[in-house]
């Protein structure tokens, strides 16, 4: 099951506790207020729960924006 942009934004806001809008998905993590790398742990766990699929963690750790992570989680 893939996850829409809207659902992804909601998941980041509600489950990860980082407030972002769809317009900020492509912002580099360094430019994203309130973001730090440890949020990835919660994001991976939440994404796997919501999509029912394994997320490629190694590639996800190299991602520089939430948009990239959304694409990784949605790719088959």
């Amino acid at each position, binding site marked *: 099951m893939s996850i829409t942009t809207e659902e992804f934004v909601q998941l980041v806001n509600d489950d990860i506790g980082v407030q972002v809008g769809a317009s900020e998905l492509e912002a580099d993590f360094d430019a994203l207020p309130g973001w*730090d790398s440890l949020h990835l*742990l919660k994001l*991976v766990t939440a994404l796997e729960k919501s999509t029912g699929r394994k997320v490629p963690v190694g590639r996800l750790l190299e991602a520089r924006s939430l948009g990239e992570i959304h694409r990784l989680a949605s790719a088959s």
Partner: protein
Amino acid sequence: MTAPEAYIASIGTSLPGEPVDNEQLAKALGVNQEWVEVFIGTRTRHFARDIGTNEVRWSLADLCAQAGEKAIANAGIDPAQIDFIVLGTATPDTLMPATVNHVADQLGLDQLPTYQLQSGCAGAVQAFDLARTLVTSTGGTGLVIGGDVCSKHLDLRRDLTDAAPSELVNFVLFGDGAGAAVLTPEPIGQRVALRRVLNRLTGLGRAPGQVIEWFGVADRDSDKQAIKEDYKAIEEAVPVMAVEILWELLGELDWSVEELDYILPPQLSGRMTSLIYDRLDVPGVREISCVADTGNNGNALPFLQTERLLAEMTTGQKALAVAIESSKWIKAGFALEKI
């Protein structure tokens, strides 16, 4: 006349129970296993508590006594030859009696001075510093111990869905364990001279990088986070401080980096330690680390590293250990030479 020296005669260590791997830990915490492997880089750790039932299986005193007993046996001396004990820990079993005195009890030692240093990751080095001073000034033989039971603050049965990242990270970083060394005024056993010890507070005006709370009757129900890490500050400052400590120790010893055979870098996590070693930029110097297998068990780490070092070290070889306590930013390290 040459100045008196202190020598490590032996090391003994103790890790509680079977190693807990990332599969078991990830399952207990409900987090992603691969993330722990890739991002933290620690493969296994040991816990003094049963991760299923939270029951305490070993106290800090138990682990320290086991390590101490092994160190005394490895030195080939009689326990009665121990003149003093120094223990460094951040996680004593009780505030009183100091855990060091229970350790003495378990080892059957009495009628001797005991010291306990309340300290984080630099505590083992501070224990070596005090013990070295005592050995060289009194000619006595000391038992130096470092250990921590970090799992006291990790309730693995808790639902961590709402845990802050600064709290969650502790569950995947830490472990429990203890180590001990017999320090003598003359070279016996392993015959490793403790050439220098660096122990210096550098945290004036700086916010702590790590805080561990303790709770009493009046605040036991407080919802304060028990362990807090400013991991961003740690990630930024520790590699820089490690490089400074390496070069400061080399300078004080008048050793060139080419003379150095081994480096024992700070043991934060498998991944951070490997980044710090790269940052030290001493490619010809062999790294001795243990954290990927043992987890970060605080004051046990320098002993676990030294145990691995002694398995390889040959006469004439030199080693430097670097430790950093990010709580209040303490620079620590020591220099060893096998004679």
